[in-house]
């Protein structure tokens, strides 16, 4: 041990132990597959958002009169400003791609099941805060889609009975989104929500490291320990997974770099065309739609004919995800050994989520014209198609409960030890 390490450990004996607990002596299953990269990627993107966000904050002006100009100032006059902003905007979208895949991994391998229910709940809270963080960040450039998006989304709260309209005014701080809205969204986006997000991430990881990671076989590796007391199927997170993740990060960064340098707006998906027009409360964009990562949930809202019920369905579509650990009663965790119907249901669920996203992103009118000809009744067909999808979305959760609660599931035998494909 070096003299410095010795000096350090005498004065802060706890820090070395924390490092060991979470890195060199955190034993992770050795059979992680490609689905297990996304947690690390999410952490990386979070750091990217904080660092690039700090630099953007130095040059951004949070006023209705100055916000739009200051973003162009960052893009054109600030050295490397365009790079920092594109890293931030691309990071926002990549955050959701990575988080959606991370959540899907959880559904595939039953990572939410006992004893990891708290890990799942904390993860869902992260997802919820992330949505608020992304929404408020999207408002800050004060383009026309920022403005109208803010107006539409905040107005959803008017569906709350009794004091809905008062609530909307309270959130906006005014009667149409303006300076007060921008100021508070800036405060929340830059200070409050990142703090909450960081705290939740620490708790999410803390809860995970207490019970240990799940794996593609859905086996508890702690049930088979060697003479040294370490799981036989486990390997220290550092250096094994730090290095594996480093290689994964390389691939991930290549994808990000291609987007940032060659197509930062991704055809209007990561950065929307209408946001190149300054906020204008007199000119409504042709179609008001949220950024792509909200589009599945936005579609659920749009497909319900009544506003109150729509908002309720929107809320339910997220709340139901919180309940997954208690809806899915199956004992077998991994999709490898679960019944065929679960595999099919999960695949359908993923496709439904994607198609709802296409509706929310307003891609379907073009498809309908393509399939049914130019005289097709777009609204009727879209509503029919969309409502079936909304039903299928919720049906997944109902099915999983019935399938597992009443014991319909025919599972395969789960192996004693993990299977690797190295």
């Amino acid at each position: 041990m070096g003299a410095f390490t010795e000096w350090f450990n005498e004065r802060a004996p706890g820090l070395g132990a924390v490092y060991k607990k979470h890195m060199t002596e955190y034993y992770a299953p050795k059979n992680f597959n490609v689905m297990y990269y996304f947690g690390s990627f999410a952490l990386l993107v979070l750091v990217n958002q904080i660092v690039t966000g700090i630099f953007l904050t130095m040059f951004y002006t949070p006023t209705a009169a100055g916000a739009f100009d200051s973003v162009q100032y960052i893009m054109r006059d600030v050295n490397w400003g365009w790079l920092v902003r594109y890293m931030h905007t691309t990071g926002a979208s990549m955050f959701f791609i990575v988080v959606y895949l991370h959540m899907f991994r959880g559904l595939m391998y039953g990572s939410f099941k006992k004893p990891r229910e708290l890990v799942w709940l904390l993860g869902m809270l992260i997802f919820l805060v992330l949505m608020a963080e992304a929404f408020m960040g999207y408002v800050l450039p004060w383009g026309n889609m920022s403005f109208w998006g803010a107006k539409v989304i905040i107005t959803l709260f008017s569906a709350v009975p009794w004091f809905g309209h008062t609530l909307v005014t309270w959130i906006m701080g005014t009667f149409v989104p303006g300076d007060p809205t921008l100021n508070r969204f800036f405060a929340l986006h830059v200070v409050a929500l990142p703090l909450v997000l960081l705290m939740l991430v620490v708790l999410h990881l803390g809860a995970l490291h207490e019970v240990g990671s799940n794996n593609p076989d859905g086996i508890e590796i702690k049930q088979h320990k060697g003479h040294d007391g370490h799981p036989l199927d486990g390997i220290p997170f550092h250096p094994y997974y730090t290095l594996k993740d480093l290689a994964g990060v390389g691939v991930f960064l290549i994808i990000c770099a291609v987007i940032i340098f060659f197509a930062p707006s991704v055809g209007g998906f990561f950065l929307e065309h209408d946001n190149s027009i300054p906020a204008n409360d007199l000119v409504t964009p042709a179609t008001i739609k949220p950024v792509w990562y909200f589009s599945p949930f936005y579609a659920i809202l749009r497909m319900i004919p009544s506003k109150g019920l729509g908002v309720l369905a929107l809320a339910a579509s997220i709340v139901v995800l919180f309940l997954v650990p208690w809806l899915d009663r199956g004992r077998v965790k991994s999709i490898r050994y679960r019944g065929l119907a679960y595999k099919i249901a999960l695949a359908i669920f993923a496709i439904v989520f994607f198609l709802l996203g296409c509706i929310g992103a307003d891609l379907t009118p073009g498809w309908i014209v393509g399939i049914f000809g130019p005289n097709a009744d777009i609204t009727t067909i879209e509503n029919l198609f969309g409502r079936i999808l909304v039903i299928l979305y919720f049906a997944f959760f109902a099915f999983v409960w019935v399938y597992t609660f009443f014991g319909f599931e025919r599972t395969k035998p789960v192996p004693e030890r993990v299977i690797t494909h190295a």
Partner: protein
Amino acid sequence: MHDKTFRASVRILAAALLAMLVAFAAAPSALAEEGGYPNANVNVHDQGSLQRGARLFMNYCVGCHSLKYMRYSQMAEGLGLTEQQVMENLNFTGAKFGEPIISAMPEADAEKWLGKAPPDLSLEVSARGADWVAAYLKSFYLDPSTASGWNNTVFPNVAMPFPLWQLQGEQVPVMSPAEKGQPATIEELKLAHPGSMTPAQYDRAVRDLTAFLTFVSSPDELVRSRMGAWVVIYLVLFTLFALVLKKEYWKDVH
């Protein structure tokens, strides 16, 4: 056995995910086609095209439209021109080299004369797309029913009179036979009086002007694409080294 089924199911899921990614990647291009405007074919890396576009803009557009987010000095840098070249040939308002490109027309007067102040065009291509801009500039036609005498098929009843008419000439609409109960629609535009340019020359002029506006919308694109290749090459090397390192450490994991 379960191993095989597992691999099959992973492959199915991976294929589904891949299909989704491809669909997402293909969606923007599908959308672009949906706009129905022909590809503007702009190349912002063609400096000659940008320079010709800038000259057209300074001769025909800047009288009414500003580019308030673009400085003359930044334009010089992007177009590969010297300060002297820009100040003598492309700056007609007396602005300093470091100042933004602002139209000499007072906004209040513009509103009085045209009914609507001409919009700033700094972000026009970002907002509407290069294809739209090019199609718009080719779609003016004579229409005695409007205040300016001009109309546009891409932007019906636009307030702007057609400033490039001496170049393109005057187009008139060819109407399709009206169906019962339906108003007649414009089938195509026909060149009634040719301008100083041939249609091919005018197409090239529009392409240059659109390329210039594309550059003005995102001047970073010139730096980005040059730098991006190096960043990706570096990251590929980084990933290869990381992979070798990982393999070395993982040798003892069975």
